[in-house]
C-alpha cells in the first residue's frame, strides 16, 4: 500500500511540476506572441571565431552619418579581403551576396555595389587573397537606434558580418516613402503598400465564397446526428439533390471567377517579366605583391591574460622602411599607438567598441629596412577577445588564427599583409613559449 501511495505521490508531483512548467512556458509564449517586441541583436558575435578571423576581413569601413531622418540616405562603404587561409570547414566564396545586418527592414536598401558592379543579385567570380571594395546605400525607415553592419553572405559558409555602428533614424515612419516608376510608365506611390489592397480584395472575395459554402453545411444538424446517420447508411439524407445543385453552381462560379478574372488581369498587365534569377560576375582584381611577408613562428592565446601573442618574422619587400601599425581580426583593431600614422588612420565613424584599448605592442618597433627580415613579437591584449566571443577558437576543430597586419612607411603610406598560423592556448605563464622570447612584452603586460 505504501509503495502504491509513494508511486502516486511521485506521479502527482511530476504532473504538477510539468503543469507548472508548461503554464509558465505558455504564459511567456503568449506574452511573446501578442506583444511585438523589437529585435536589437543579429548575432554578430555568434558566428564561430574561425569564420570571423579567417574568411572576410572588412577594413576602411565608414558610415556617412550616425544620424539620419526617415527617408534620408546613409552610405556604408569600405573594402574587404577574402582571406587566403580560408578555413576548410567553410565553403569558398564562389557565390556571395552583399547585404546589410540590421534588425529587420528598419533601414532599406537603395543601391549596393561590389567593386563598382551593381550587386542587387548574388555575385560569382570572387577569389580568395583578393581585395574588393563595397558600397551600401541605405535609407532610414523606422525611427530608432539601429546597429548597421555590412554583411557578405557566402553560399555554404553563411552570413559573415562586418563591423557595426549605431545609426539613429529620426522623424516618423510615415515620412518614409518608396516611389517607383515601372518601365511601362506606371507610377507606384509607395512600394510598401503597393498591391496589398488588391490582393486583400481578392482574398476577401474568395473567403466570402468559401464561408458561404461552409455555412451551407454548418447550419444543419452536424456532428453527432450526421455520424449516427452515416453509420446507418442513410447518406441520401445527408447529401440531397439541392446540395448537388448548390455544389454545381459553386463550381461553375469558381471557374467563371477565375477564368474571367485571369483574362482581365492579363489585359490589365500586358507587359510582365519573371523574377530575375541570374547572378552577376565580379572581375578578379589584379595581383598586388605583398609589401611585407609575415611568417608566424609561434602563436599563443593567453587565456587568463586575454592576450594573443605571436612570434613572427617580417620581411620588408618594399623599397622604403616600414613599421607595424595595426593588427586586425574579426573587426577588432589593435592599433600601435606609438605610430602616429596608424592612430590617424582611425575614421571617426568607426565603432569605438571595436578598437582595443591597449592597442598593439610590437616587440621590436623600430623601422624595418627594405629587404630586411626582422624577428619580433606582436602582442594583442584586450578583454575584447572575451567580449567578442573570439576565444572559442580554442575549442574549434581548426585552431588557427588569422588577420591583417597594416604597415606604414616613413611617408605615411599604408601597406597590408595577411597573417595566419596555428594558435596554442596557454593556461599558465609556465606554458608560454612566446613570452620567453620576448620578456619585455610579458613584463609590460604583467605590469
Amino acid at each position: 500500500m505504501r509503495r502504491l501511495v509513494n508511486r502516486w505521490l511521485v506521479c502527482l508531483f511530476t504532473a504538477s511540476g510539468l503543469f507548472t512548467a508548461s503554464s509558465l512556458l505558455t504564459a511567456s509564449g503568449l506574452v511573446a506572441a501578442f506583444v511585438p517586441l523589437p529585435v536589437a541583436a543579429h548575432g554578430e558575435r555568434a558566428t564561430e571565431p574561425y569564420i570571423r578571423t579567417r574568411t572576410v576581413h572588412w577594413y576602411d569601413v565608414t558610415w556617412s552619418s550616425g544620424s539620419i531622418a526617415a527617408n534620408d540616405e546613409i552610405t556604408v562603404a569600405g573594402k574587404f579581403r577574402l582571406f587566403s587561409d580560408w578555413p576548410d570547414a567553410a565553403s569558398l566564396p564562389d557565390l556571395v551576396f552583399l547585404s546589410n545586418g540590421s534588425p529587420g527592414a528598419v533601414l532599406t536598401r537603395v543601391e549596393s555595389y561590389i567593386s563598382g558592379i551593381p550587386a542587387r543579385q548574388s555575385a560569382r567570380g570572387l577569389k580568395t587573397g583578393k581585395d574588393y571594395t563595397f558600397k551600401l546605400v541605405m535609407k532610414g525607415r523606422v525611427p530608432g537606434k539601429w546597429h548597421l553592419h555590412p554583411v557578405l553572405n557566402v553560399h555554404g559558409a553563411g552570413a559573415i558580418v562586418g563591423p557595426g555602428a549605431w545609426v539613429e533614424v529620426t522623424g516618423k515612419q510615415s515620412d518614409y516613402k518608396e516611389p517607383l516608376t515601372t518601365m511601362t510608365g506606371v507610377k507606384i506611390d509607395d512600394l510598401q503598400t503597393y498591391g496589398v489592397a488588391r490582393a486583400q480584395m481578392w482574398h476577401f472575395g474568395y473567403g466570402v465564397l468559401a464561408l458561404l459554402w461552409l455555412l451551407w453545411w454548418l447550419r444543419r444538424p452536424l456532428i453527432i446526428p450526421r455520424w449516427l446517420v452515416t453509420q446507418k447508411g442513410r447518406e441520401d439524407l445527408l447529401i440531397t439533390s439541392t446540395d448537388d445543385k448548390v455544389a454545381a453552381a459553386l463550381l461553375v462560379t469558381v471557374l467563371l471567377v477565375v477564368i474571367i478574372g485571369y483574362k482581365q488581369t492579363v489585359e490589365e498587365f500586358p507587359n510582365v517579366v519573371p523574377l530575375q534569377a541570374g547572378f552577376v560576375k565580379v572581375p578578379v582584381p589584379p595581383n598586388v605583391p605583398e609589401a611585407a611577408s609575415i611568417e608566424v613562428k609561434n602563436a599563443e592565446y593567453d587565456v587568463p591574460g586575454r592576450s594573443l601573442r605571436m612570434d613572427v618574422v617580417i620581411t620588408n619587400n618594399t623599397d622604403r622602411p616600414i613599421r607595424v601599425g595595426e593588427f586586425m581580426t574579426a573587426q577588432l583593431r589593435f592599433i600601435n599607438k606609438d605610430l602616429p600614422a596608424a592612430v590617424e588612420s582611425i575614421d571617426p565613424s568607426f565603432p569605438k567598441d571595436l578598437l582595443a584599448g591597449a592597442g598593439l605592442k610590437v616587440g621590436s618597433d623600430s623601422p624595418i629596412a627594405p629587404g630586411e627580415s626582422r624577428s619580433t613579437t606582436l602582442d594583442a591584449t584586450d578583454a575584447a577577445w572575451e567580449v567578442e566571443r573570439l576565444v572559442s577558437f580554442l575549442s574549434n576543430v581548426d585552431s588557427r588564427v588569422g588577420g591583417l597586419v597594416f604597415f606604414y612607411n616613413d611617408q605615411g603610406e599604408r601597406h597590408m599583409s595577411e597573417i595566419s598560423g596555428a594558435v596554442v592556448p596557454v593556461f599558465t605563464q609556465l606554458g608560454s613559449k612566446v613570452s620567453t622570447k620576448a620578456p619585455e612584452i610579458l613584463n609590460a603586460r604583467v605590469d
Partner: protein
Amino acid sequence: MNKNDALILQSAELSPQAAQWSRTFDYLIIVVGAFLVWSVTYISQLLLAGDWDFFIDWKDRQYWVLITPTVTIMMAAGFQAIFWKLFRLPIGATASLLLFLVGVWIVRYHSWYGMAYFPLSLVIPGTCLMSAIALDAILVLSRSWLITGMIGATLYGLLFYPSNWVAIAGYFQPVEHMGSMASVADMIGYIYPRSGTPEYIRIIERGTLRTFADHAIWVSAFFSGFVCVFSYYIFWFIGSFACNPKFVAVGTRFKSAFGGSGKPAAAGESA
C-alpha cells in the same frame, strides 16, 4: 430547421433534448476543430512551402506554382477524408484553406509587419482557396474520392496560378534598377532587407521548363495538377486511416503500476 434536418434527427434517433445538446456540442466542436484544422494546415505549409509562400520575390513561374498546391492539397485531402468518411461533410478542403488564409494574414500583420518591420507588399501570401472550393464541390457531385482525386486534384493544381495571378500580377511589371531590369517583386525583395536570407537562397526559375516556347508557367501548372493527384490520394488514405480508432492493449505491468491487480477482471469486478 427544414424537413431534411428533421429527417436527419429522426433517423439519428435523437430526442429533442438530445438534439439540442448535440447542437451545443456542434458549436464547441466547430471552435476546437477550427483551431486544429488551422494549426495543422499552417504548420504543414510552413514546413514544406515556407519561403515560396512568405515572400513576393519567391513567387516564381516554376516552383511556387508547383510546390504550393502540392503542399496545401495534403491537409485539404486529409481533412476532406475525415469529414467525409465520418460525417459526409464536404467541407474539409475549404475549411483547411480558408482557416489557413485567415491565419496567414493574422501572422503577416502581427509578426512580419509588426515585429520584423516588413512591408505587407513583401509578404503577400498565395492562396489555394478557389481550388479547395472546387475540390469539395467535385466530391459532392461525384460522391467518389477516386474521381475527386483525378478531376478535382488536377483542377486544384491548375486553378492555383490563375486564381492568384489576379492578385499579384502587378508585382511582375518591369523596372530598371542600376542598369538592369527587374520585376517590382525583385525590387521589393531587394529594398526591404532580410538579413538572414541572401538572394542566392531563392530557389526560383531553375531547370529547363522554360524551354516550352516561353510558356513555362502553364507547364508548371499542369505538372502541379499531375502531382496533386498523387498528393491527394496519399493524404486521403492517411485521413481515412485517422478515422479508424485503434486501441493498444495494455499489459499487466502497466495496469499494476497504476494500482490495478494486473489480472484479468472477473465478471462484475473492477480491474
